């Protein structure tokens, strides 16, 4: 199970709270220096898994290794990991410097050395000179940075982050995402990051584990998760996706083919088709993979439909195009390249052509 470069190895872990199974047979490896995200809706078990790494929850069965060491009997205060809490948990009775130096007590450093380390950390989180500030004088973003500094000053092998950006407003969150990623590259520590925000996970992570109902659905890089989701659940959780029921018809020579509802007989690259002829599958196509044109395109394959609904978002527009043979309209996302016509480029009710590249077609198992 565990490969040689696994820094954290989670093996067949289960967790029950009473009769409720919070974690269902989870196994995965996290590499050293990786920015690894646990992504899922609330209640999917991601925070429980993180708290297991920190030592706040025990495993009901299975084993977690950190840097080759089994962790089952190691209490939180002896683990080589540190955590940034969702609420930041900044100690309100201590000032910023004492908060950051909190974990240094056992190292018995001289006052000067301690102050030097704290100043270094304040420099790192871009809050120099904030040492004497009281905890209640800080903004949300500052608290988040201080929680980071307080954890990083101990040079942990792994930094655990429990939705640390959730409490910040959108602009600050985007700025902190960039800073967090830069900081992680700078310190080179393995980050395990819990979030329910798929965009955030895609932006930050080297790899993402998508979780649902206590199970891990897929562990992959952001682009592979987006472009080659393994199940319908992953495909619909990350970004938008159009699904079509279909039947495999492998009668082309270089290309396979699928008979899909609303799309007709469409070509699919053979390497994507693992099912035999006649098998039922699902075809998945991202909204932005469609090309919406007024005239029949010079493409291998195109179908005609009518714009049933449209939303103008500035940079791009979302269209819902109804086609014969499919109940829900197809979601299409198009960049607004035509400045002159703007939203009128594809008016409501207008007949339009939809085309796509066969490479864009994802074939999934039928549920």
């Amino acid at each position, binding site marked *: 199970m565990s490969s040689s470069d696994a820094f954290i190895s989670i093996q067949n872990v289960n967790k029950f709270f009473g009769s409720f199974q919070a974690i269902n047979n989870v196994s995965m490896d996290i590499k050293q220096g990786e920015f690894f995200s646990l992504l899922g809706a609330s209640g999917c078990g991601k925070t429980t898994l993180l708290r297991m790494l*920190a*030592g*706040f929850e025990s495993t009901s069965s299975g084993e977690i290794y950190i840097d080759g060491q089994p962790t089952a009997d190691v*209490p*939180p*205060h*002896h683990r080589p*990991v*540190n*955590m940034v*809490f*969702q*609420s930041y*948990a900044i*100690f*309100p*009775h201590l000032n910023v410097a004492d908060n950051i130096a*909190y*974990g240094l*007590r*056992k190292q018995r450093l001289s006052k000067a050395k301690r102050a030097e380390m704290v100043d270094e950390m304040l420099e790192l989180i871009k809050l120099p000179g904030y040492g004497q500030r009281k905890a*209640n004088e800080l903004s949300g973003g500052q608290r988040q940075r201080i929680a980071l500094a*307080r*954890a990083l000053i*101990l040079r942990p092998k792994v930094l655990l982050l429990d939705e640390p950006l959730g409490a910040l407003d959108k602009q600050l969150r985007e700025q902190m995402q960039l800073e967090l990623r830069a900081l992680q590259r700078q310190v080179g520590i393995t980050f395990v990051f819990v979030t329910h925000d798929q965009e955030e996970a895609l932006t930050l992570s080297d790899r993402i584990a998508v979780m649902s109902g206590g199970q891990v659905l897929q562990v992959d890089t952001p682009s592979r998760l987006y472009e080659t989701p393994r199940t319908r659940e992953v495909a619909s959780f990350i970004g938008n996706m159009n699904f079509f029921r279909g039947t495999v018809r492998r009668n082309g020579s270089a290309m396979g083919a699928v008979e899909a509802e609303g799309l007709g007989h469409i070509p699919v690259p053979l390497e994507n088709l693992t099912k035999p002829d006649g098998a039922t599958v699902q075809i998945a196509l991202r909204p932005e993979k469609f090309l919406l044109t007024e005239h029949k395109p010079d493409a291998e394959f195109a179908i005609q439909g009518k714009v049933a609904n449209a939303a103008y978002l500035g940079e791009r527009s979302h269209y819902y195009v109804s086609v014969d043979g499919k109940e829900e309209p197809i979601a299409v996302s198009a960049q607004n390249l035509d400045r002159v016509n703007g939203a009128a480029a594809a008016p409501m009710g207008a007949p339009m052509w939809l085309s796509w590249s066969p490479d864009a077609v994802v074939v999934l198992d039928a549920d």
Partner: protein
Amino acid sequence: MSDHGTYIKRPNRPLQIYAVIFLIVLYVPVLFIPLFSFNESIYVRFPLEGFTFRWYRELWTREPVWNALFNSIKVGACVAVISTILGVIAARAITRYRMPGKSALVTFIMMPLVIPGIIFGVALLVLLSRMGIPLTLYTVGLGHLIVCLPFAVATLLPRFEGFDPSMEEASADLGENGWWTFWRVTFPMVFPGVVASLLLTFTISFDEFIMAFFLTGTDPTLPMYIWGQLRFPQEFPSVLALSSLILFVSFILVFFAQWVGRMGLDEQNQEAL
């Protein structure tokens, strides 16, 4: 509309009048005690006969008053410390652990508030005499502990409830074990509650009469001493003087306890918003 015209904060004249009447009815009877303690006559009646500090001076010179005072302080201090320690332990357990029957447990801890002191007093007296334990200041302290514990828990619970459990987790995560976490995080954060609890339980023990009535041996506490003096009419003005002093000190202690107990809580609530 007035300048601070939000709907809910509008001044409400009838309510203000009601509040004033309420406070008058509540405290006027009590205010007669200090009033007559400065009266020259030994009889409690109008008209007043002249202003004097005589009763207070007399009090100063009386050996038994001082003895009773020290007894009350000794008992009060011990009861305050022990009930506050027990209160910290109870409040921490109640707020930090998932346990079956928790609400029933809290109810039982709070029960002495509503059980008449006379019942507890008699029960303890019977039990102690059955066990052959002589009545001393220790037995008074035991009785006071029962009375004070609910107040200690009630003062400390909101403190423990008001702080984020992830504070303690953060401390553990940063390398401190349970003992150090308690002293470096938990205790400083609940400290105002601890001070409030100490002051409040001391005051309650200091003023308590019924338990002391049943459980006092030969050493009287201050309320017991006052009770003993009520038989002698010529002593009554001194009793009034003593009562006024007790009232005054109790007021100050309780006000201070309330103020300390709320310290920082408003801030935390604001953060929670």
